[in-house]
């Protein structure tokens, strides 16, 4: 048992050579710790939601989507002991919606970021390593994606595909991965490709696949991790904007909360602040938490930015 754990830790260390060192550096950076606290807070909200619904909260009243027994009118009702963040115009509990939305946002962000990073790393490494036609095709594709306004692409996709949460996450991941991120990753891969140890590996008979997987991609891990954080921010933000314009068909997200407040005419009414402020603030806080972590990683990945 211990031996297996030990071996797997060692193999992770082997694959990502500087992981342990980074961790201690990361703890020293204050903004990174602030960001991690923010992410932990929203993860906790998302995890607590199903537990609360099963125990303290009666699902009939606290269901985030369509409670069978909504809060009696007048709605929206201000915060009370039963409803800490009040109720929405239809009598649903805002806190329950907010917690459910936290889960949606984290899921969306994680899936989009994983798709982006996998695509950008594989395509970027291969484009840098093989060059030629493969490189040219994917670089021109990146240009095209960067030139086309994102909103037009998303309107187009939303007409032809039902935009539920997961497909949206995959689409955002694909466009972010094959657009801007692959350019950055490829530039990094080009620098790695010309190092002496790549020549040494080839001289020792390493195949292209082996060199890519064992030598190039691990050295792209830092920059990929950095862009993973930025993609989460981008994905959560895009979802919120799309929902705000009423373009997607997700069940309950923070953007939908603002959208439904807007269509019922409560957007600019400070006296019903609990309809928009919690959702708007959550979008901003979660996005900035991931961005802060990304910035902290930036300082670690680029050694010249370190204090010592």
């Amino acid at each position, binding site marked *: 048992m211990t031996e297996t754990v030990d071996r797997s830790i060692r193999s992770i260390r082997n694959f990502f050579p500087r992981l342990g060192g980074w961790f201690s550096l990361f703890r020293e950076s*204050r*903004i990174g710790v*602030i960001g991690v606290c923010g992410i932990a807070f929203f993860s906790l909200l998302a995890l607590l939601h199903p537990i609360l619904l099963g125990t303290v909260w009666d699902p009939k009243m606290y269901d985030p989507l369509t409670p069978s027994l909504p809060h009696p009118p007048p709605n929206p009702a201000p915060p009370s002991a039963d409803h800490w963040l009040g109720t929405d115009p239809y009598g649903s509990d805002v806190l329950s919606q907010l917690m459910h939305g936290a889960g949606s946002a984290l899921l969306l962000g994680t899936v989009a970021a994983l798709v982006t990073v996998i695509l950008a790393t594989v395509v970027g490494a291969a484009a840098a390593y093989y060059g030629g036609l493969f490189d040219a095709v994917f670089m*021109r594709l990146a*240009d*095209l994606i*960067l*030139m*086309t*306004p994102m*909103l*037009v692409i998303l*309107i*187009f996709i939303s*007409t*032809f595909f039902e935009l539920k949460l997961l497909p949206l996450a995959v689409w955002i991941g694909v466009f972010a991965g094959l657009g801007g991120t692959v350019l950055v990753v490829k530039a990094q891969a080009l620098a790695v490709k010309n190092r002496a140890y790549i020549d040494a590996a080839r001289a020792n008979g390493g195949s292209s696949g082996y060199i890519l997987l064992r030598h190039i991609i691990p050295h792209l891990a830092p920059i990929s991790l950095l862009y993973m954080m930025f993609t989460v*921010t981008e994905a959560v*933000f895009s979802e*919120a*904007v799309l929902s*705000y314009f009423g373009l997607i068909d997700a069940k309950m997200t923070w953007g939908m909360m*603002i959208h439904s407040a807007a269509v019922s005419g409560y*957007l*600019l009414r*400070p006296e019903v602040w609990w309809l*928009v402020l919690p959702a*708007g603030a959550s*979008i*901003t*806080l979660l*996005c*900035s938490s991931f*961005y*802060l972590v990304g*910035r902290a990683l*930036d300082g670690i990945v*680029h050694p*010249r*930015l370190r*204090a010592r």
Partner: protein
Amino acid sequence: MPDPRGWKSETVMRRYVVLRLGQIVLTYFLFLVLIYFLLEALPGNFLGALFGESRLTAGQLDALGAQLGLQGSAAERFLQWMGGFLRGDLGISLSQYPRPVMEILAERAPRTLALFLAATLLSFSFGFFAGKILAMRRGTAFETTVTVGGITLYTVFTPWFALWLLWIFAYALRLFPVGKFITYEMWEAGAPDANAVFRHLLLGGLMLAMVAWAVFRRTARLIPARKRAVRTASIAAALLVFCGYWIVTGQAAYVLDILYHMALPVLTLTLISFGGTMLLTRSSMLETMREDYVLLARAKGLPESEIRDRHIARGALLPVVTTLVFSLAFAIGGGVITESIFSWEGMGYTLMEAVTLSDIPLAVGAMAFTGLLVLAAHLAADLLYAFLDPRIRYG
């Protein structure tokens, strides 16, 4: 392959530019094909959107379609459009029939340019200034506070934030107007053409910038005490000439009205975007700080502010300038969110309107325009990079 004759060798640079231009033409053509057919593939067409519920017969609709150039297949329409495009004709807008697309874009581009140029330049100056200070104070509580604050604004949910600013400043405090880019009552009879005033405003700003640049170039070698006096006096004189021009031509009130309407959107855009420049400047400054010439400046005993502004910030400017070039190119595309919240009828607003109304000529025209600028900016940024940093070579 390093060039033995040095990086600035004319032929190498020329070959690189020609190669890139060729690629740009190819990419641009692909882009036009792509957006044209994407828009054509969207369900619903212009006639359906407009007359879907009227009692026009199929024959009458066909006749209307023929008149608007909607007959034939998508490929035929594309070829026809492409032919027009090569002759410099972007066709006629459907939703604003019979205005040519070129005319609509010429009317709306200056509005977007004025708004986003002002906001981009302001947020870059402010971000650069803030980033300089952050870099010098690394590791302090001040740095953490400003960084977290800047990032929060940078990642804020834009529609929500913009609406709140609009609510606070325009509705509660009544400091700024709500929406639109002019006060209509003021511009009714006898007023100059709003778009002409807009163009004059842009031209004036450009000339002012050129004068300022020329003054800074000419005075670069003067002794510091005189330099400041000469610069202040010349810029003040130039400003006075411009204000005088507006007053004499009787346009001053109208220009002020436009600026008054621009204030709130510019403030919003500056607040949400300075964070990016601030963090970029900080990173760039931290890298430059380790250069030997900074150590030399310290050893010479120069004052810290002098080292910061004249030695480190100079060297740290390169990546900031490159992103500025990019931002300026994207500025012409405008922001759909900002423009629709502030009812600013610029490029982003036009594009959104054209796409929702299936006005294909207008939508394609708008994107053809912005796409070209993005490609040009990409090339300009690469060349600028090579020009500013002798270590980078192409070829």
